[in-house]
């Protein structure tokens, strides 16, 4: 099993360690996760699935909590730039 996994965050290739969450890939890409209802950039607060600040679109599906989803090779992640 490979010890790293590559995904794309806003089209940009990012490699993280195997078992890393999508939230980690977003932060590694230098992006923030979502834009708040008034347009502020947000990133993970709780890291454990309760705060919903880390929402991104994964493979086209919006509103996914990125801290609760593990990276899979080739995932397309759309975050708030």
């Amino acid at each position, binding site marked *: 099993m490979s010890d790293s996994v590559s995904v794309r965050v806003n089209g940009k290739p990012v490699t993280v360690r195997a078992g890393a969450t999508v939230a980690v890939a977003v932060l590694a890409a230098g992006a923030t996760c979502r834009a708040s209802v008034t347009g502020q950039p947000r990133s993970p607060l709780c*890291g454990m699935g309760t705060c919903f600040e880390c929402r991104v679109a994964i493979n086209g599906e919006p509103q996914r909590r990125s801290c609760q989803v593990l990276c899979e090779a080739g995932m397309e992640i759309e975050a708030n730039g």
Partner: protein
Amino acid sequence: MDSVRHLSFDVAVVGAGPAGIAAALAAADSGVTVGLIDDNPAAGGQIWRGVQSAPQNSASSIWFQRLNKSAVQLVRGARVFHAAKGELAAESDDSAIQISYGKLILTTGARELFLPFPGWTLPNVTGAGGLQALLKSGLDIAGKRVVIAGTGPLLLAVAAYARKCGAKVVAICEQTTRSRMVRFGMKMLLVPGKAPEALRFAYELRGIPHWTDCWPVAAFGSRRIESVRISRQGQTSEIECDYLACGFHLIPNLELPRMCGCRLESGFVHVNEYQQTSAPGIYCAGEPTGIGGLELALAEGEVAGYAATNWEDRAKHLFAKRARYGKGVRILKDAFPLRPELKNLARPDTLVCRCEDVPHERLREHGCWRAAKLHARCGMGPCQGRVCAPAAEFLFGWQIDSVRPPVFPVRCASLAAVPSHSAAARN
């Protein structure tokens, strides 16, 4: 269209942290069918998050080995959003899940209390446990400057962990007083098993400033945090940092116990000596019954698992162990009361509800949580008040009294899959 999975267990355990794992294994000792259901991608809860990838050198490995060898069915990535008598409704990424059970054990764990201050919504301002969870999930923090703030021994654990991951921990800001902190340290040394842990932390944290009477006043930055202003023994100063990890105690996850009708006492699920709640056939163990940490959660979980399978003798054998680990809890409670100054950190325009961007001034004008929800949309976003309700409770003294299904935002298809008799049974 989503598929619907149907599962049936003699004992269903919700929450696969240490308490849930211990409960599931104890219940499985009787040979009954046991389901262990968890929202996360892997078992372990928060304290054992991500450790399965390196099990050989962790204290948790024996539990994971037992779990992997057991007949317990682990249902991962499943959010339980509804509970009725004998039935749970959950949702995974691709399906709705109907779970029927004979006995239910709730081991839903805890989350952190976050307190609003100007700038707390900036990216890279995280929870204390939140930062640790991200590190366990693979975040690379090597060389980053980290300030850790809030209260309680969790700050020390997080600081030690962040340092081990290569972070430069600039300071630990503890809001409690120096005298309380010293008294806490002395008392913990007398609790069995805690002295080596305390000494280990002292060693691992050598050279890192640990300031008491110290808390964050404001965070600054354009797209992410760049510095934090702290108050330290009455003086303010500014520290540059890449991350601010901030947690003001753990608070129990009570959404499911509440929905199941379990009686609460002083903010925790009331249980008898067998970990049985006031709701028939429903047990509770770990942090929802009182914040007590790993060992206590394991002991409570085992008691619950045996009690739920009518193995009272085995449960009774664990009472002494459970009582021993219960000691540290009381010491913790006395040492870290939140100081009133923390109620005044939020400015009128500081957001309290991060989902709906509701500022403090829009909340303050209401007399209770319900009014604030109805008029200001506070707590009406996807987190359903998991962050802002406990903050509002602290800031305004409001009682947060209601919970209703679904306790997580879910897809319509998952809602539609809830049997109508089950949905009606609630009301």
